[in-house]
């Protein structure tokens, strides 16, 4: 693993003010390093600020303290982040291919030059032949695949994924996990993945960061040394069980 982190987060703090003026400290002190090529998952109790953390990294929410250092030479956070949201957030009026090309238009990159890449990405996420379909003709799982292709179109270094499979049924979710690992391997991205699912986090990641309840801090960042490529078998292995217990333990659920 390279020595310089792609992103280095120190002492990150976020305070929300409610409508009644009450101050809620969502993130108290987050410290986390993410290295190039790594797959890092963040797990934690509901409302602990996982989504907020991703949104701060994407520049959608302002931080209230701490610092986020990026390796400026190799990484431009304004253009090289791909965000996969909880909901697919596809534009109903655009065909699948035009949805995938949306970031290209916003970043004012020549659209025609990226058309081929959009088709390749749709193939990568298993949607070859659906270029001309409208989003509401697709199932939930397919819609989320489109949003993954869209997050990859501008070739970002860092993928921020906010419970992307949370709304899918269990079977589709497992299939999407396998797909995601394949895509990650082929597209060679750094991924920061937020999830509620502990098994999902361990199965996917090189490292699992466990957040405490609000005001949250990183309780532990657990290295996952399971060999790759991983198949669903790995879930029944004793190591997997041990790692799960460690995560439950740091969430104080044992």
């Amino acid at each position, binding site marked *: 693993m390279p020595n310089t982190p792609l992103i280095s987060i120190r002492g990150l703090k976020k305070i929300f003010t409610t409508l009644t003026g009450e101050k809620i400290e969502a993130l108290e002190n987050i410290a986390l390093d993410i290295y190039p090529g790594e797959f890092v998952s963040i797990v934690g109790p509901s409302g602990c600020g996982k989504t907020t953390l991703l949104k701060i990294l994407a*520049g959608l929410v302002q931080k209230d303290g701490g610092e986020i250092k990026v390796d400026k030479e190799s990484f431009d956070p304004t253009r090289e982040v791909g965000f996969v949201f909880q909901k697919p957030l596809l534009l109903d009026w655009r065909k699948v291919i035009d949805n995938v090309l949306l970031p290209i238009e916003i970043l004012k990159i020549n659209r025609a030059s990226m058309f081929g890449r959009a088709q390749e990405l749709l193939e990568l996420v298993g949607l070859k032949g659906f270029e001309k379909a409208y989003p509401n003709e697709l199932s939930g799982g397919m819609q989320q695949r489109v949003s993954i292709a869209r997050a990859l179109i501008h070739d970002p270094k860092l993928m921020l994924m906010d419970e992307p499979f949370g709304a899918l049924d269990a079977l589709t979710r497992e299939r999407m996990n396998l797909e995601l690992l394949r895509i990650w391997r082929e597209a060679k991205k750094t991924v920061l993945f937020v999830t509620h699912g502990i098994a999902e986090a361990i199965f996917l990641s090189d490292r699992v960061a466990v957040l405490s309840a609000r005001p949250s801090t990183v309780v532990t960042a657990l290295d996952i040394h399971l060999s790759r490529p991983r198949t669903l078998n790995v879930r029944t292995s004793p190591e997997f069980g041990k790692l799960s217990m460690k995560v439950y333990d740091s969430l104080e659920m044992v």
Partner: protein
Amino acid sequence: MRKIFNFIWVRNRTSLTLLGFLILWQLVVTVFRIREFILPSPLSAILHLFFRQPDANYHWIKNISATLFEILIGFTVTVLLGIMIAVIVSWSQLSRRFFIPLFIFVNSLPIVAIAPIILLWLGYGIYTNVLIAFLVSFFPMVINTTTGLNKVDEDLLDLVRYHRGSKWQVLIKIRFPNSLPYIFSGLKICSTMCVVGVIVGEFVASDKGLGYIIINSQFTLDTPPIFAALIVIAVMGLGLFGLVSLLERIIIPWHGSVNG
């Protein structure tokens, strides 16, 4: 037999309903021997359109095209201005606070009451009627479009924001397409209101048009041309509405309202 009837019915529901209504009307007039200046039969009204009457010349072609022209201009102006105003109104909170009360005020004025003033300012002719058509129909256009521009899933905006997209890009890529179904429902209301507006304008003051025929025929108790004019007006309203529905199918095929 039943199947064939069903097929024809499903295909032509609107026109068959209309035809049924006309037949019923014709029967009522014939059976009850209603006098022509009270309620002429649809046949007599329609015949007035195609055959020159011995006692009067209604110049149908000239008058119909005058009204049709005013309706089309009024509709186009209202739609374009309405959408532009809606974009301005939705752009900032401040403009919303300023414009919306103003529009509500203008829209609450009874148009028949301010029409004489407009006539005073603009005189006889197309400007007056187009302005009246605009005043009658701009409100639903502006309100619908503004709603569509503002009623956007906030998360969709994040999609543009995290790429540091501009407010303009948000408008063009997200807000405007999002508002298209709302714009079309505004267009549908506007299409019929515009017809009303133009006819009101012709009532108040004009030297041609279907409204002019109605007013003139009323003075002479010459009822059939009034109904002939009404039928033409209804056909124009239906036609414009149909045109909007057709455009809706072509422009927003992705939207549920199209097949619903």
